[in-house]
Structures are given as structure tokens and as C-alpha cells.
């Protein structure tokens, strides 16, 4: 193993353990944790035995192992972007519903014009709005 492999594997092992802790403590959903763990596993294997990607790449008709990794990375990133976008939309929607709830709860309506006998006291108060 060269220096790069040693360092990268240590980092990946640490991330793997972190993912496990996150799953156990409930910081991440089980599905997310599983996806991450799988990603670390694949990364670990390809760093440890770089020949593996070449074998798979050749089987798929792609020349170099590094190309396969690149293609996969692009696809994974695209899916990632889409997932983030969908989540962003949901958060926006929830924000609107929250803002709406507040607006309706705190609606200010003008008081009905006071009847003649009530005028003297009420009308002198500051403003004429009820909250």
C-alpha cells in the first residue's frame, strides 16, 4: 500500500464508523445511513484494489477504470442534486404554510364603527384596530 491508500483508507474507515454511529443514534434515517455506508464500502474497495474498477470497466466496454469512476460520480451527483432540489421545494412549501398560518392568526381587522354611546371613550384610544 502506498501513502495515498493508507491515508484514504483511514479517512474512509472513520467516515464509515461515523455513519454507523449516526444510524444508531438516529441522526440519520436508516435508509440514508445505508446509502452512505454503501458508498464508503465501494470507495474503500476501489482504493484498496484499484484493479477492480478496470475489470468492471472492461466488462462494460469502458477502457479505463478511472473513466468508470468518473461516470459513476457524475450520475451519483446528478441524483444528489435532484434529491436536494426536491427537498428544497418541500421546505419552501412548508415555509409558506407556516407563514400563512402566522398571517391568519395575527390578522388585524378594523373594529366595527363604534355605536354612538360608546364613541367617547373608545375613539380616543390610539389607533382603531383590534389585534
Amino acid at each position: 500500500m502506498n501513502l495515498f491508500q493508507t491515508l484514504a483508507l483511514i479517512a474512509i474507515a472513520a467516515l464509515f464508523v461515523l455513519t454507523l454511529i449516526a444510524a444508531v443514534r438516529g441522526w440519520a434515517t436508516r435508509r440514508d445511513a445505508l446509502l452512505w455506508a454503501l458508498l464508503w464500502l465501494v470507495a474503500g474497495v476501489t482504493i484498496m484494489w484499484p484493479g477492480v474498477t478496470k475489470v468492471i470497466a472492461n466488462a462494460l466496454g469502458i477502457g479505463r477504470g478511472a473513466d468508470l469512476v468518473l461516470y459513476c460520480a457524475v450520475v451519483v451527483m446528478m441524483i444528489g442534486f435532484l434529491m436536494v432540489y426536491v427537498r428544497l421545494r418541500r421546505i419552501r412549501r412548508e415555509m409558506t404554510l407556516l407563514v400563512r398560518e402566522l398571517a391568519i392568526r395575527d390578522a388585524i381587522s378594523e373594529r366595527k364603527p363604534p355605536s354612538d354611546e360608546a364613541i367617547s371613550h373608545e375613539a380616543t384610544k390610539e389607533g382603531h384596530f383590534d389585534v
Partner: protein
Amino acid sequence: MANGQTTECETLPDSARTATFVVIAAYNESTCIEQVVSEVRAEYPNVVVVDDGSTDGTFEAAKRSATHVLRHVINRGQGAALQTGIGFALSRGARVVVTFDADGQHRAEDIKAMIAPIWCGECEITLGSRFLGGTENIPASRRKMLRMAVLFTRIVNRVNVTDAHNGLRAFSDRAAREIDITLDRMAHATELIDQIRLSGLPFKEIPVQIRYTDYSLKKGQSSRNAIQIALHYLLGRVLR
């Protein structure tokens, strides 16, 4: 479609006026909101202003003039603000809900023709049309863009309207309950047309006048926006 006013509706009864809630969504319109509200309020006692997180004095100006004032603490866009106002109006027992622009482009006297067919049970929804009615000082580019928007609506939504992006609309309480605007910004106009079609509620276009002033043009939509709005709408349709 244009010649719809039945004679029995010529004079709208007072009960119709008081049961009508006019919803005005406003974003940074402090300079004209009071004027717009008081013109509407001269005829309709229930004016609801939804201040959409304005950073000028719109909220204070609205409090001085409107019957009901609601405030979005964060700007959520016109679609979101209209939905807030409509929900509020229904909760206060509105029988007819009208939406009206805050930038002074609509005429308060057009509201009557919008309400009458609904009040008489002729239809559930009315949509204002500047192309059946008229426009004042509309720039040629703006007209072209609006025509394209109508074409877009006819093709994508398969609804035959002459003006899909007019802020002057009216809904019976039943129709207002069926409507649920989820596209927060300007794409809500197209979403609304979809919902009207899906609900099967009868609607009618009413000729109205839209006036373009230096003020409204400065604040209004640009052609670049139009493409953004169309994309927004299409994405909303795919991702739902």
C-alpha cells in the same frame, strides 16, 4: 362569451357587496396601496390586504386603509399571498372572493361585472380579460409577451382563454374552497387555470380595463421573467 350580463344582475344588491371580499396581495406598494384600497372600499366594505413581507411602509399604509390586514413575515410571492387572502376571506364567511392587483392597474368599477354572474349563479368563477376589454398604454413588447403566455396556456393547459395572466378574478365560495394555489410566485396564474379545468367549475371571461403607468411598468414583469415563470410552472407539474 363576452356579452354575459343578465338583466337581473344590473344592480347588485347591497347583500352581495357586503358578502364580497376583495383580496389585494401587495409587495412594496406603499406609494399606491392606500389609493387602490380606498377606491375599492368605496363600494365593497370588505377589503383584505395581504402584505407579503414588504420592506417599505406597505403594512402601515394598509392598516390605515384596509378592512383586514394580514402580513407574511417573509416574502412568499403573489400566489402564496393570494391563497392566504382567499383562505382568510372564507374563514370570515365570504360568499364571493375577488382578487385585485395592488399596483393600480385594475379599475374598481370593473369588480361589479366580475361578481354579477357569480352572484346570479350563472357561473362559479370569472376571469378578467384585457384582450376582451382594453388596455391603456400597454407597450408593444408587453402585449406580445402576454399573447405568447395565452398561447402557452391554450397549448399546455388546453383551456380556451383570451388572457391567462390577469390579476382580476372572482370566485364563488364553493370555487374558492376548491382552489389551492401551491406555486408561490407568478406561475400560480397557470396553475390556477389547471385547477379550474380539473374542477370542472363553470367559468366565464369578463372584459376589463388594465392601465399601464410608468409606475406599474417599472414594477411589472419583464420578458426574462416570463421564461422563468414558464419553467417554474413546468417543473412544478413534473415534480408533484
